[in-house]
């Protein structure tokens, strides 16, 4: 059961590139091995999803939700906040992964634990911890006032900045691990070779390390973006009224308005939107890769 649950969540990680030279084994009966997970998916995932999609077409739901200005606002918020969080997470994640990659064994183990800690901590705990830090009389403001950078507290909480901070903290491990694994697969001697051929550190990074870690970066970007679009607690705990994301609207439709067809329509809209973006992203990546081939 737990195995199947793991499998269920795996499609999210589709951004991880399949190893190019994995041999394809096509033998008769291979599908039998898939039967348990297929059955599981059909009963517990596809059927409810089908019902949800069916429900979304009742009562003119799409027109109704899309005429709601709050929904449109939430959709725009979802895209911009997710995009911003993804960019920040991937950049920070890359830096952490680089440090991990270059660190000695002991440092690496400690750093891994530090990176994994938020992974194992509940999202509510993390967000409230940030709320405590960022509030007007919190540590960050106290520090800024203490060193005389500001006289009055800077509003750090209940705004978009806070939402992105909270999300990035939750998302970091999803960026660090794919990027680290692609960095770790780079042969150290490539860097030595480049240096012997006259490359400075900057050139080694730009021409060797960065291009060879692109699979990790693109996997991380995809993974982080998809997870971002579903954030629900962080906008509530750390955002202001103007930072509601689509998941909050779904909650609002389902629980406050008890408009289930409207909530279903919103869920479908989010799924389709993200799917289209993911498809475009992969198309662009592929084109980039082919261009590099020539």
């Amino acid at each position, binding site marked *: 059961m737990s195995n199947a649950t793991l499998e269920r969540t795996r499609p999210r990680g589709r951004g991880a590139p399949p190893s190019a030279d994995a041999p394809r084994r096509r033998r008769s009966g291979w599908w039998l091995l898939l039967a348990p997970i297929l059955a599981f998916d059909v009963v517990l995932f596809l059927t409810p999803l089908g019902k949800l999609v069916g429900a979304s077409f009742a009562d003119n739901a799409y027109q109704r939700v899309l005429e709601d200005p709050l929904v449109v606002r939430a959709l725009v918020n979802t895209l911009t906040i997710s995009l911003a969080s993804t960019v920040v997470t991937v950049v920070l994640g890359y830096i952490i992964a680089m440090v991990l990659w270059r660190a000695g064994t002991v440092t690496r183990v400690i750093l891994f634990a530090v990176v994994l800690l938020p992974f194992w901590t509940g999202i509510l705990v993390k967000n409230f911890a940030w709320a405590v830090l960022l509030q007007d009389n919190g540590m960050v403001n106290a520090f800024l006032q203490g060193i005389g950078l500001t006289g009055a507290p800077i509003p750090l909480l209940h705004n978009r900045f806070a939402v992105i901070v909270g999300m990035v903290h939750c998302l970091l491990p999803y960026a660090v691990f794919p990027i680290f694994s692609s960095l770790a697969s780079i042969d150290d001697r490539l860097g*030595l*070779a480049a240096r012997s*051929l006259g490359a400075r550190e900057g050139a080694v990074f730009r021409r060797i390390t960065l291009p060879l870690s692109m699979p990790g970066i693109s996997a991380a970007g995809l993974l982080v973006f998809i997870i971002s679009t579903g954030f629900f607690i962080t906008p509530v705990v750390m955002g202001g009224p103007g930072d509601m994301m689509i998941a909050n609207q779904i909650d609002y439709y389902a629980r406050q308005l008890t408009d289930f067809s409207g909530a279903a329509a919103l869920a479908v809209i989010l799924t389709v939107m993200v799917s289209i973006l993911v498809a475009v992203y992969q198309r662009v990546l592929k084109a980039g890769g082919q261009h590099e081939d020539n």
Partner: protein
Amino acid sequence: MTASVISAESIPGTGRAAQGAIELRQVSKHYGDVVAVDELDLTVQPGEFVTLLGPSGSGKTTTMMMVAGFEEHTAGTVLIDGRPVDSLPPRDRNLGVVFQNYALFPHMSALENVEFALRMRKVPRAERRQRAEEALGRVGLGKMGGRKPRQLSGGQQQRVALARALVFNPAALLLDEPMAALDKRLREQMQEEIKTLQKSLGISVLFVTHDQDEAMAMSDRIVVMRDGKIVQSGPPEEVYNHPMTDWVASFLGDTNLIPCTIVERNGEEAVVDLGGLGLAKVRDRGASGESYAVSIRPEHLKFRTRASAGNGCAATLVSSTNLGATVRHRLTAGGHELQLRELSSDRGTRILPDEELWVGWDADKAQLLVLES
């Protein structure tokens, strides 16, 4: 694959004469308490092909890495063309390096790999392309420039690595076990090609290997290393035929080691007592130690008649094994086990086990050496 495809044209576009002397003075490398390289003195003359030969852990790769600048030495000085390079990073040492696994950039085509050094030197695009194509042509891969490393065979990858290391006219070439990943036939072919290329370019080479056949086949001079020290250095034939210690003798191939005591030493020659085998005249290089032995390579032992002059002893055949080109005979003589190797084509009348024989050797083929182990 065709035979030698590396053509012997000079490097285009250079007026600079190939220099490339490498000199190490008292160079040491310590890792904490461990001494990887111990006060090494080594010189590679311009145009010379010098091989660092030794088992793993002998410090040969560390030595090469210190010349390349990837490892910092703890003491001593490294000079290239008479100039100390101790404080220079690898990129400024102007040395071509070929790594064991070639370390080709997998995301670049063969041509881009070769172009890399020129790109780093800001050579204009057109000239860069032309020189890279010429370098690829020189290693017989003129038409393969567009391929990615993974689309090339092991031998082709190695040629690309060579072209990449040579395209910027480096002062010298450093090769770190470059043939370890190739099969025997290809390895022998590449040995010849690299040697031909090296001669035609007149470039100095520092070559690292643990393979004594490879060292014998390619080097102008072999430097045998053990535990971070040079134990012997010289032309291949000299190191092979006149090892200074039993360790060198055994490392460079099969040998018969007969413990002995010195009766008389006079310059190049010594008279030794071989115990059960009597007195013999042997070559002496003045090595001194606590105990001595005489090394005679199996191919230098010959079946002789008792009447013939020179060193010799009575022996009994134990077994004979046909190895194809050669036949290996195991003998006992005076309480010692001896190996004798002769060409299959020289094999005379069949001898049978337990047959009494007389084996002999030329005095200059028997080397007095120090017993270390």
